[in-house]
Each structure stands twice: as C-alpha cells, then as structure tokens.
C-alpha cells in the first residue's frame, strides 16, 4: 500500500513537472485541472510516465501561454529602445562612432528591432487566440537566423562599398551579399508565413490558396520591413506605433476597475477670479507685443536694423521672439486654470522648452554645434511634460507609463524641434487669443 502510494505520488510529481513550462498565473488557474486530465489519460493507458508527445506539447503550450499582452508590450518597448538607439547611432554616426559602435548599430536596427517587433506581434496575436502557440514559437525560432543573416547581409553590403571605395578586390564576405540577403529574405518570409498560415487556419479559405496567401504575405512583409528598417526614422515610428497598440489594447482587455472619482476643483471667490483673469490678460498682452516684434524682425529685420542683420539672421531672431511669445501665452493660459502641480509642472516644462528653442534659434544656430543634439536637448522638457500629462491621475497604470514614455521619446527625438519651428508664427496669435478671449476662469 505504501509502495503504491509512493509510486502514485512519484508519478504525480513527474506529471506536475510538465506544468513548470506554464506561467505561474496560468498554473494557479488551470494547473490542477490539466494535471488531473494528464493523470486520467496516463491511467487509462496504464502509463507511469508522460509520453514524448505530451512533454513536447507541454513545452509548446506552456511557453506559448507566456506570450501574453504583457510580453507583447515589453517586447514592443525593447524594439522601440533598440530602434531609438540605432537611430541615434545613425544620426550622430559620422562624428564619433567607432567601427564597433557602427556594427552594433547595424545589429540593433536590422536584427534586434525586427525580432522584438515580431515577438510583440506574435504575443499579441496569441493572446487573442488568432494564432496557436506552436506557430508563435516556430516563427520566432525561424526568425532568429533570419535577422542574423539580415545583419550580416547589411555588413557585407557595407564591406563591398568600402572595397569599391578603396579600389581593392572585395573579400569573400563582401561578395556573399546576394546569398546572405536572399537567405535572410527566405527565412523572414517563412517566419511571417507561419504566422499568417496559423491566422488563416481559422477561416474557410481553401488550403492551397491559404498557403499561397501566407507565403505572399511573408515575402512582401520581409522585403518591406527590411527596406523600412534601413531608414531609422521609420523604424522608430513603427515601433512607437506598436508600443501604443500593445499598451492601449492591453488596457482595454483588463477587467474594469471602479471609476476614478473626479477630484472636486477648488473654486475661488469671484473677486479672486477677476484678479486672475486680469493678470492672465496682462501677461498675454506682453506676449502679443513680443510676438509683433518677432513678426516685424522676421520679415523686415534688415530694414529695421539698417542692414545690421541680414535676411537669415533677422528671420532667426524673429522666430526666436515668436517662440518667447508662445511661452508667455502658455503661462497666461495656465493662470486661468484650476491650480495643480501637474498643470504648473507641465506648463513650466513646455515654456522652458519654447525658451530653449528660442535660444537655440537665436544664438546656437550660428555656432558650429551638433544640431541633432541641440534639437533633442531643447525638446526634452516638452517631452517630459507630455509624459506627465499622459500619466496624469493614473500613475498606477503600467500601460499609461509605457505610452507616456513612447510619446515623450517620439516628441523629443523626432517631432519637437520641428513642430516648434512650424508653429512659431502661430504663437503670437495664441497669445492674442488668451488676451482677448471671453473664457471662463476655473472651469
């Protein structure tokens, strides 16, 4: 009897070990039920051990069950970080990068970024039951040599160029470019086709057509993504979109918690409101005056200064003044809103960013400095302000944090400096609006 009990306990232990492939949360919810079914099946077939097929299936389904919304989100974040690092490498490459750093940049952009993008996509699809675990894992496995060969193809292409520049015979590695590229494309096609085929399996599309569609989708995706990833800005935009998609959809699928109670806003007495409105209008008027001066210098600066400033210099000075008027308008607007640390914190950061932009426009552009670094530095405070506004009253939500960081990085690295220049001439108009608008204070 004791022997029997021991045998039974040992057998249960052996089957229970199969469950270790599954994530802890899954085991807590379904582990005992799955174990019971495994033991029922073993008993019916008079087996004491799991079959090879059961072991393989537990590995595939267990590891597959780990590919959930959380993995999708973090994989997208890693892909975005790799794409950002690579784009900084590409943008600043000419001035400081060693050969080792240049090679790292290639691996980051052509291998790490696409593999983690695939991981994010595959985890997202699996979590929604659109593909099965086997297809998800197989696709990721096939993609590993695929992206490695893509990176090698990229480096081989560069080696070929270098050899041509130096007018020397290209090395064997350089001449291997077409084969490396072809092999990378082939594996990329297979990786995507596996995912597409699994998605199409749950449709009534006939078998042969399904295979053709999957292979065509794989081939096109592999070639388009390899072309896009060569342009750093596109891979940054694509990964940021992926981060936003995975974070937003994960948020939507979460069980809804109790709605957040709106905080009662403190409404000051009418006299205080009138004072604030007057203060806002006075400050905004200063912004309008600075803005008008900005317009004047930008367009007729050489005439006003009797030629002391040339056309380009006066345009820069005018734009800088317009940006200052924008910062002033922002402060004036903030005075009319309910007081909160978040409001004043983010407004101060936005205003700081505009002022830094103005300094960069008026002064630094005349100096021989790294323009990309300046653009990033002046946009950074606004990026932080954007993140602050997005996180808002929900600092406990990890997906909000991820979207906030993605938006802040996108703004800082890609959009900030450009937008400030595009919108500079609209800023005096914004100041004018704040000065004359019959807005309600503290609404």
């Amino acid at each position, binding site marked *: 009897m004791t022997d029997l009990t021991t045998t039974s306990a040992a057998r249960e232990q052996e089957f229970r070990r199969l469950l270790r492939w599954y994530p802890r949360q899954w085991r807590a919810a379904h582990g005992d*039920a799955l174990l019971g*079914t495994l033991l029922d099946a073993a008993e019916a077939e008079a087996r004491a051990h799991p079959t090879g097929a059961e072991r393989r*299936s*537990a590995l595939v389904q267990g590891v597959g069950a780990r590919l959930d919304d959380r993995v999708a989100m973090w994989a997208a974040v890693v892909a975005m970080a790799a794409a950002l690092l690579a784009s900084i490498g590409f943008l600043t490459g000419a001035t400081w990068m060693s050969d080792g750093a240049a090679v790292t940049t290639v691996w980051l952009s052509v291998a790490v970024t696409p593999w983690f993008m695939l991981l994010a996509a595959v985890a997202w699809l699996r979590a929604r039951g659109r593909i099965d675990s086997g297809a998800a894992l197989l696709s990721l496995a096939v993609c590993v040599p695929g992206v490695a060969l893509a990176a090698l193809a990229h480096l081989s292409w560069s080696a070929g160029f270098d050899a041509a520049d130096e007018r020397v015979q290209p090395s064997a590695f350089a001449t291997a470019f077409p084969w490396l590229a072809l092999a990378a494309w082939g594996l990329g096609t297979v990786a995507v086709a596996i995912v597409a085929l699994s998605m199409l399996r749950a449709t009534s599309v006939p*078998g042969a057509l399904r295979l053709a569609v999957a292979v065509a989708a794989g081939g096109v995706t592999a070639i388009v993504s390899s072309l896009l990833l060569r342009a750093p800005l596109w891979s940054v935009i694509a990964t940021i979109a992926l981060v936003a998609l995975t974070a937003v959809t994960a948020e939507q699928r979460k069980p809804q918690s109790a709605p957040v109670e709106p905080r009662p806003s403190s409404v000051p007495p009418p006299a205080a409101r009138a004072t604030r409105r007057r203060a806002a209008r006075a400050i905004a008027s200063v912004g309008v005056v600075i803005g008008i001066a900005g317009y004047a210098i930008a367009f007729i600066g050489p005439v006003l200064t009797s030629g002391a400033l040339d056309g380009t210099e006066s345009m820069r000075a005018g734009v800088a003044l317009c940006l200052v008027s924008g910062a002033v308008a922002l402060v004036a607007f903030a005075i009319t809103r309910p007081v909160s640390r978040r409001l004043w914190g983010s407004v101060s950061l936005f205003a700081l960013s505009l002022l830094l932009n103005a300094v960069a426009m008026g002064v630094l552009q005349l100096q021989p400095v790294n323009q990309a670094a300046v653009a990033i530095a002046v946009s950074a405070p606004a990026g932080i302000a954007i993140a602050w506004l997005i996180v808002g009253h929900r600092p406990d939500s990890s997906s909000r944090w991820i979207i906030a960081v993605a938006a802040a990085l996108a703004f800082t690295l890609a959009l900030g400096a450009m937008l400030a220049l595009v919108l500079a001439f609209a800023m005096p108009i914004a100041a004018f609006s704040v000065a004359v608008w019959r807005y309600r204070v503290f609404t």
Partner: protein
Amino acid sequence: MTTALGDAAFWILTTLVDGRRHGYAVVRAVAEASDGRVTLKATTLYATLERLEAAGLVAADGDEIVDGRARRYFRLTDEGRTRLEAEVAQLEARARAARQALGAPRIARTAAATA
C-alpha cells in the same frame, strides 16, 4: 476535415452538445466521435478550451475532486451552440455542392451508357 473553428475546437464543441463533461471525458468523447482520427492531448485540450472560453463558446461548470484528482467540467454556452450550428450548416452546404459536382458527371455517364 477543416473548419473555420479549427479541428480541435469543432470536436470539443460537438462533444459538449450532450451536456457538461470534464477534461478527460472530452478527450475520450472526441476520440469516439471522430472514430479515433482525432486524439487530443491534455495540453492541447486546455489551450483550446481556454480560447473557446475567452470567445464565450464554452464555460467552466464547476470543479470536483475525485480520488484526490481535480476534475474541471465544461459546458457549451448558447453562443457556442449557435456557432456550432452555423459551422455545421456551412459544412453541409459545402458537402452538398461537392456531392452535386461528383454526382452530375456520373448521371450523365450512366445516361450515355444506357442510351
């Protein structure tokens, strides 16, 4: 046979039409209903059940402990039944079309032979 639901899901829904069943009972019923052509592994069964549960086609219907072993029962939901009926209608339409295509030349051939 391929269905829009996928083979495993199709057979699981089919075996739950009779009433609630626990995991291993579903495995056995699927093997019987498919004349032994479909053998579900426990791991695949639970992966599929999880998907069907998320889609609202089946629902967990209580846990029992029998001889120290956990058994979770599952039942077909109304939505699951509707989905299975739609699936069957589609399969029948396809089978009818194929039978017609296969039948037409034979009738023609028979008619030609008797003429």
